[in-house]
Structures are given as structure tokens and as C-alpha cells.
């Protein structure tokens, strides 16, 4: 299953003939006898004995091709050769230039019309994007972003938000075997200019701007960074349905009570600036709640499932936010975040034993002396430590139309933000 990834990856790194031996997957947690069986068996790709292949890789002489230097150029033509509408739709689908849903063909006229949505020149560089940090980054300009915006069904007035998203260089399809989701949140006046929906059904398929901006991000990820090629630049075992639209939503700023800042203002932007922000995580759930008790004391229970390596995000309906402020005394998001950080705890024993991410990521970092993990690793197993390592990793967003005291909790963390106004 990793053959294509390995071959294409080493090709892009300049060693198309790099030597590999495969064994059955996975190898984590295997007893010694199974490890030996895999190593004494055959490579499932080539059918040859694993140990012999390893030795051959070390000792067989290099070919002239193996020692080559120089560059392999891969220019991208600006236009696709002319063809009928039906054939072009088939071409885009077969080349995996779409998300599998019908697209709007990016004709010259449609792209020219889309480009009216920004004052920036078509050939102005926008950024670079890559499926994940080890992969190569591709470049793109304003025109290529506009092409993908047309394909997503966007209108010229949506283009500044889509360009701002593209300028972050963050793909919506982040490759990992764990099937990440990504999220896009819009703040500031542009939300209302585009008539985005932050109210009833904000996260559902009920609003053109919410729909097409989120979809454009995925099409850009597929086409501007070559993300999302299953088996090559996308390895998520199950995939993530959120990737179709990336939970695209505006924050419901109008319903925030006094003292509760919109997300972009928390970051230091002015309230009148329009900003797009991206987040990374896996999913949201809605654990049950008790209406008869204060909400804030239930939040640590809601967040029990969140990995200590991950951030935490709460999507709160404005009705809950008003209750938190008016009945429970939280005058700002920051005050509630501090309370959550102090009161959501996990025992050191659970932290060490029950979270793969702690074993895989936190443990090696702590062993190198990085705080607070280094100190936490020395504590007795019964000691309680914060489940979310830092208050900076806790996010609260206002969304919803007030039809229920509804909320969702997830493991999304902030990745990047960019000015929309810069791309008008």
C-alpha cells in the first residue's frame, strides 16, 4: 500500500532509483516472533526474500542512472487543449483534478470574470502549498487560484477570501495516515458582504458562500499542491468527510456578548478587518449535557476524549455563550479558556498509558527536556496534570442560530490566519 508513495516521493527528492524493501504493515507493537516471521519472509511487493533484498540494496553496484546529476523540469501548460464540454469534464475527472463532484469548467471568459473580484494582477505570485512538510511545495499565482475558484462554483466577490486562503499555503487535504480534517473560519465585515451564514444551519449545506469557499480550498489543495492523490500524496486510512467543505463558516460575531472577542480580534486584528483562519483536527462530537447544571463545570467532562497532544475547540451556540456570561460570570472567552485549562485534568498514569500521541510525540520531546513535558514525565502516576497543555491550545467560536442550547467539542487547533482585505 505504500509502494506508490515511496516511489513517487523518492523521484521528487531526486533519487528515482532509491532502493527499498517492504514488509507487511503494520509493525508497531508486534511480538518478536512476528517480527522475525516478517523479516524471514518475502517482500510483499517484489516477492523476494526481505533479508536478501536488504543486503542487495547495500551491495549491488550503482548504475549510471543511479549516479546522475542535473534537473528534471516539469512545466505546467497554462491552457488545456481545446475539446468538447463532455470530453473536458471527463478529462478533469480522470486526471483527478476535481473532488469527484461536477465542476464548472474554467473557460477563459469565466476566469476573466472571476479575476474582476480582485485588484491583483493575474500573474502575481500568491504562495506555495504542499501536502505535508516533507513533500514538495508547488507555486501558484492569482490566475491559478481564480481557475480553481471558478471550478468550485464561486463568484468574483468570493475571490478575495479564496486568495487569502491560498496565501496561507495551508492545504485542506493534509496527508497523514490518520485522516485529518481542516476547518476555515471567516471573521470581519466580509462575512456580511458575502451574506455568509453564521446562524441557523451555518455548518450545513444552506449557503452559497459557505459552500463554495470551503470547496474551493479543497480544489486548490488538489490542484495547486498535488494533495489528495490517494496512495501518493494522501494516506489517510479512512479519509475525512469534512474535507468536502472543510467546515467553512463565519463566526457569529453579532451574537457575541460584550467582552467576548471575535476570533480575529483575539489574534490582534482590528474588528473592522476581514480575516480568514484555518484550523487542523480530526472531528467534532456532541456529548450529552445537563441543562440543570452550569455549563462551564461540564466542559472538562466534554473534553475527556481530546488527546493531550491536541488542541481543543468548542463550537458554542450563542445561547450557551449568553448563559456562560450572564448566569455563570465569564466576561470573556479568555476567562473561560483559563478556567478550562486549570480544571480539565488527566492523571499522569492515564496520560502516559492511554494516549498514543503522548507515547509517540510528547514522550520523545519530554525526554529532550522540553517543558512542561519533561517535568510531567517525572511526576507520580496519580498526580493530575492539565489535559490541554496550554491555554493557547483552547479555542472557542460562536456559531449557530439560537434554536437550541447546542454545542460541539473537537480537537481543532489554529494553523494560520490571513487578511482578506489585502486580496480585494
Amino acid at each position, binding site marked *: 500500500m505504500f509502494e506508490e508513495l515511496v516511489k513517487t516521493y523518492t*523521484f*521528487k*527528492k531526486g*533519487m528515482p532509483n532509491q532502493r527499498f524493501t517492504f514488509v507487511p504493515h503494520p*509493525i508497531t507493537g*508486534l*511480538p*518478536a516472533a512476528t*517480527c*522475525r516471521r*516478517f*523479516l524471514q519472509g518475502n517482500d510483499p511487493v517484489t516477492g523476494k526474500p526481505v*533479508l536478501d533484498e*536488504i*543486503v542487495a*540494496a*547495500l*551491495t*549491488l*553496484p*550503482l548504475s549510471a542512472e*543511479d*549516479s*546522475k546529476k*542535473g*534537473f*528534471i523540469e*516539469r*512545466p*505546467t501548460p497554462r*491552457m*488545456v487543449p481545446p*475539446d*468538447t*464540454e*463532455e470530453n*473536458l469534464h471527463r478529462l*478533469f475527472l480522470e486526471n483527478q*483534478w476535481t473532488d469527484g463532484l461536477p465542476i464548472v469548467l*474554467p473557460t*477563459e471568459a469565466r*476566469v476573466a470574470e472571476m479575476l474582476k473580484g480582485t485588484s491583483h494582477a493575474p500573474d502575481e505570485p500568491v504562495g506555495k502549498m504542499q501536502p505535508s512538510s516533507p513533500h*514538495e*511545495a*508547488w*507555486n501558484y499565482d492569482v*490566475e*491559478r487560484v481564480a*481557475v*480553481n475558484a471558478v*471550478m468550485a462554483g464561486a463568484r468574483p466577490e468570493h475571490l478575495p477570501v479564496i486568495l487569502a486562503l491560498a496565501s496561507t499555503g495551508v492545504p485542506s487535504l493534509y496527508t497523514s495516515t490518520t485522516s485529518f480534517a481542516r476547518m476555515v473560519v471567516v471573521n470581519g465585515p466580509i462575512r456580511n458582504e458575502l451574506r455568509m451564514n453564521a446562524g441557523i444551519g451555518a455548518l450545513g449545506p444552506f449557503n452559497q458562500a459557505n459552500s463554495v469557499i470551503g470547496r474551493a480550498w479543497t*480544489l486548490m489543495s488538489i*490542484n495547486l499542491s498535488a494533495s489528495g492523490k490517494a496512495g501518493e500524496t494522501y494516506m489517510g486510512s479512512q479519509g475525512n468527510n469534512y474535507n468536502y467543505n472543510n467546515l467553512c463558516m463565519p463566526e457569529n460575531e453579532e451574537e457575541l456578548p460584550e467582552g467576548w472577542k471575535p476570533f480575529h480580534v483575539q489574534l490582534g486584528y482590528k474588528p473592522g478587518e476581514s480575516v480568514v483562519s484555518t484550523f487542523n483536527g480530526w472531528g467534532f462530537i456532541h456529548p450529552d449535557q445537563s441543562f440543570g447544571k452550569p455549563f462551564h463545570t461540564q466542559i472538562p467532562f466534554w473534553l475527556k476524549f481530546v488527546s493531550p497532544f491536541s488542541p481543543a475547540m468548542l463550537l458554542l451556540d450563542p445561547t450557551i455563550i449568553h448563559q456562560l456570561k450572564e448566569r455563570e460570570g465569564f466576561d470573556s472567552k479568555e476567562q473561560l479558556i483559563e478556567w478550562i485549562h486549570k480544571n480539565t485534568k488527566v492523571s499522569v498514569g492515564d496520560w502516559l498509558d492511554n494516549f*498514543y500521541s503522548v*507515547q*509517540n*510525540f510528547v514522550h*520523545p*520531546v519530554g525526554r*529532550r527536556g522540553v517543558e512542561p513535558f519533561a517535568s510531567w514525565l517525572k511526576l507520580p502516576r496519580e498526580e493530575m496534570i492539565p489535559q490541554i497543555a496550554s491555554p493557547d491550545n483552547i479555542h472557542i467560536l460562536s456559531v449557530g442560530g439560537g434554536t437550541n442550547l447546542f454545542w460541539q467539542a473537537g480537537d481543532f487547533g489554529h494553523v494560520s490566519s490571513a487578511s482578506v482585505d489585502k486580496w480585494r
Partner: protein
Amino acid sequence: MKKRMSLRLVLGFAAAAVLAGAGRAQEPKFTVHNPLGQPPAIARVPMAPRIDSLEGKTIYIVDIGFTDTHQFFTEMRDLLGAKYPETEWVVRTKIGTYFDDDPALWAEIKEKGHGMIMGIGH
């Protein structure tokens, strides 16, 4: 009678084929933009020279540190050691997570090793 039927059928097919061909010819063609970004040029990297024999050599086996995979690499060392006893097989775990570089280990391998097997996966 049979002959007339066959002739009519052939003429019918021919007419249908001409009409279909005309339909295709009239179908408009469009020029559309290529949606792809620009990949960078690939800089070829010559592969490291190979050794002609394992005898008397030191080969490093590098564990990139994925959870619970170290056993696999120690078993690899033991099996290769049994099969090639004249070779020194050294298992080392790269520092940090698999995101982290380990220049000190690479320097050590360049200085003391004759080859390296990098274990990637989980």
C-alpha cells in the same frame, strides 16, 4: 423481398451514421485553463556509493522512533548478525519524533559506518 429489406437497413444505418457524424462535427469545442500549480524542478541526487562486500563492515540500522517498533529493528539486527557474522550490525534510534532531524547521528554514521538501513514505518 429479403434483399430489399437488407438494402433498406444498410441505407438506414448509413444515414444514421452521417447524421451522428454531423452532430459531432457541430459540437463546440472549448479552451479551458489548466488548474494545476507549478511543481518545482527536481534536482537529481546521486545515490551513495555501495560496498562490494559486507565482510568487516559496520552497518547501521536506524529506527526513526515510531511507537513500539524498536523490537522489529533489534530482530533485524539479530537475524542479519546470524547470517552475516563478519559484519557489525548497529541499531540506533534517531532522536525526537519522526519530524526531527538528527545531524549528530548522521555524522556518526558517516564517520564509523559503511552503510545504513533506514527503517521507516509503523
